[in-house]
């Protein structure tokens, strides 16, 4: 098990230690197939910490290997022996469900930089739980809204057969409103989509919506492009983030996808973020990196006005969300999930690099569907 203890921006000349050290525990995925996401979140987060210049914050980073049991062990260790004040970092919803309820029940603040399962947004919401990214359904709802606006009336929709996949299709249908040419649940981790593509071809659909995160999406898009089917494709940003677009290549060109962030959102914070991230890590940031960066800046802004030891004051400071987000204005809804604008992006090629360009707004100031169920 690797532990990185990073004292942020250590200053050798600092003679007196700061009065109260703040300890942040980050559990994220740094090895295995899903490591690209965790690494982006971590890099975005650490970039903001470094830019803050604060030397009284310690970040403990651990790798959950995408396994819920390991995430739980790490979280117990962080809470009980490391005595962290704030936790963050988890990418996957099933890991978040294993860790977050126990952590918040023990009085730790948890800020999610990615996973947004519906259970934690609705009945299972908690005063110490904040989601800085999105509720899981949001980007799919935006895709449905975009499809409706584009005049599609007969979509073929597919997603893996697991809770987030079911949520994805539900989210799409919530805003789409047209007929379905087909609705297919694939196997989680499936790599061959020949059978589904044949069904799409035979279905008479006028558009395709898919939620296949990571490698599944790469496989689907390559095979879809090779099949000769010419229907428009819509999806959430998870299959079109900066990390995997290069692996999909030309097969993704022109595909519309929905995201709360893109590198061309026009505000000074975002411009500086994209520039400094690229300078430091030698690659363009993804939406995951922007989420890590925003999470760190939210924590930093709250630390300006309150200390985590004063839980009520610190919670109010987090809720105020008084920081410059890469997304522009940032505000929390009553269940501590963002109310935000979600954009439609198109995959384009800039020189040798494949990336996204915003082509319109899919949903304006959008809150999630579960906020009403949250009582806190």
């Amino acid at each position, binding site marked *: 098990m690797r532990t990185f203890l990073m004292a942020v921006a250590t200053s050798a000349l600092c003679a007196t230690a700061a009065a109260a050290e703040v300890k942040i525990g980050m559990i994220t995925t740094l*090895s*295995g*197939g899903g*490591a*690209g996401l965790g*690494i982006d979140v971590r890099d975005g987060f650490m970039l903001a910490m470094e830019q803050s210049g604060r030397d009284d914050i310690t970040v403990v980073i651990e790798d959950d290997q995408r396994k819920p049991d390991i995430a739980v062990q790490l979280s117990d260790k962080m809470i009980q022996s490391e005595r962290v004040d704030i936790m963050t970092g988890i990418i996957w919803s099933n890991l978040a469900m294993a860790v977050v309820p126990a952590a918040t029940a023990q009085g730790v603040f948890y800020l999610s930089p990615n996973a947004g399962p519906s259970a934690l947004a609705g009945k299972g919401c908690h005063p110490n739980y904040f989601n800085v990214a999105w509720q899981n359904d949001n980007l799919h709802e935006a895709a449905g809204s975009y499809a409706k606006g584009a005049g599609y009336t007969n979509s073929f929709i597919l997603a893996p*057969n697991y809770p987030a996949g*079911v949520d994805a299709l539900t989210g799409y249908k919530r805003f789409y409103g047209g007929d379905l040419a087909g*609705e*297919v*649940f*694939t*196997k989680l*981790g499936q*790599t*061959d989509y*020949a*059978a589904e593509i*044949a*069904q799409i*071809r*035979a279905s008479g659909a006028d558009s395709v919506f898919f939620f296949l995160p*990571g*490698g*599944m999406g*790469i*496989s689907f898009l*390559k*095979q879809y492009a*090779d*099949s*000769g089917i010419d229907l428009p494709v819509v999806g959430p940003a998870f299959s079109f983030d900066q*990390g*995997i677009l*290069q*692996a*999909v*290549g*030309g097969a993704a060109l022109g595909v519309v996808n929905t995201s709360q962030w893109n590198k061309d959102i026009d505000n000074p914070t975002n411009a500086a973020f994209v520039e400094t991230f690229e300078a430091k890590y030698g690659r363009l940031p993804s939406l995951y990196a922007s989420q890590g960066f925003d999470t760190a800046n939210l924590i930093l802004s709250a630390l300006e006005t309150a200390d985590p030891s004063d839980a009520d004051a610190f919670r109010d400071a987090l809720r105020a969300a008084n920081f410059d987000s890469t997304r522009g204005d940032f505000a929390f809804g009553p269940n501590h999930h963002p109310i935000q604008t979600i954009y439609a992006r198109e995959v384009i090629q800039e020189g040798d690099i494949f990336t996204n360009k915003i082509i319109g707004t899919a949903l304006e100031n959008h809150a999630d569907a579960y906020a009403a169920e949250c009582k806190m």
Partner: protein
Amino acid sequence: MSTILVIEQILNGLQFGVMLFLMAAGLTLIFGVMGLINLAHGSLYMVGAFAAAAVAGATGSFLLGLIAALAAAALAGALVELVVIRRIYNAPHLDQVLATFALILIFSEGTRWIFGSFPLFLDIPKALSGPVTLPGGIQYPLYRLTLIGIGLLIAIGLWALIERTRLGIQIRAGENDREMIAALGVDISKLYTFVFALGAALAGLAGALVGAIQSVQVGMGEPVLILAFVVIVIGGIGSIRGAFIGALLVGLTDTLGGVFLPEFFKLFMETGAAQKTGSALASMGIYVLMGLVLIWRPTGLFGARA
């Protein structure tokens, strides 16, 4: 459900099956000849895909990528055999599982160390991209047809190697009694290294061929490895013919089950529920098949020893 769709799905099942065969053939040879459970076989599949992606990316030639995949996987296989596997032939199976599992971790993290955490790009060669129209008006991707062709050719080649050559006789003899053929003057350790490298090369080739239509990423080998184990258990351990029949059965069951089970449930359920039930049952399909085969033939379809 039209005939065209059914035929297209059968072709998909065949294509999946022959690629599984490339994986399973090496696995069954290694298990049959050396009595070794090699969990790291999936890593060799990954090595092939990464080598192909790296070389094809640098040179622009898919063919050079394939050659690199074969060479890299064979080399990695031979190296693993010489350095690690050779020491554990006589160890209990649990020790072999532990050692080859360690190899999976070493290969995965080593690959990440060299290539980074993000998936690599490997595309279908221009000449093979796009669909072709088959008799009867079926649109089918040319690349997948090519995969079926390559898989069948390799199956024939392997059969000829095992059944018609001196080397094949030695391999089959080694499977039955390794001490006896050593006593007859065959250099058994060289034979083992060769078989291991051959199995590795086949896995690497499968990785490279499939990598062009899938995602070339760390950990891509393990899901295929599980299926390959199912294939060799169905086919009978050590049997190339068994691996071939088993791979086609698994490929067809998995593909056709995934398509037709939900359709079947739609006859008496509403669409959403039928989809969920059908696809849940379909993902169990190959394991049910394995169970049925094992009840009927406890040593697999072509398993020799009782």
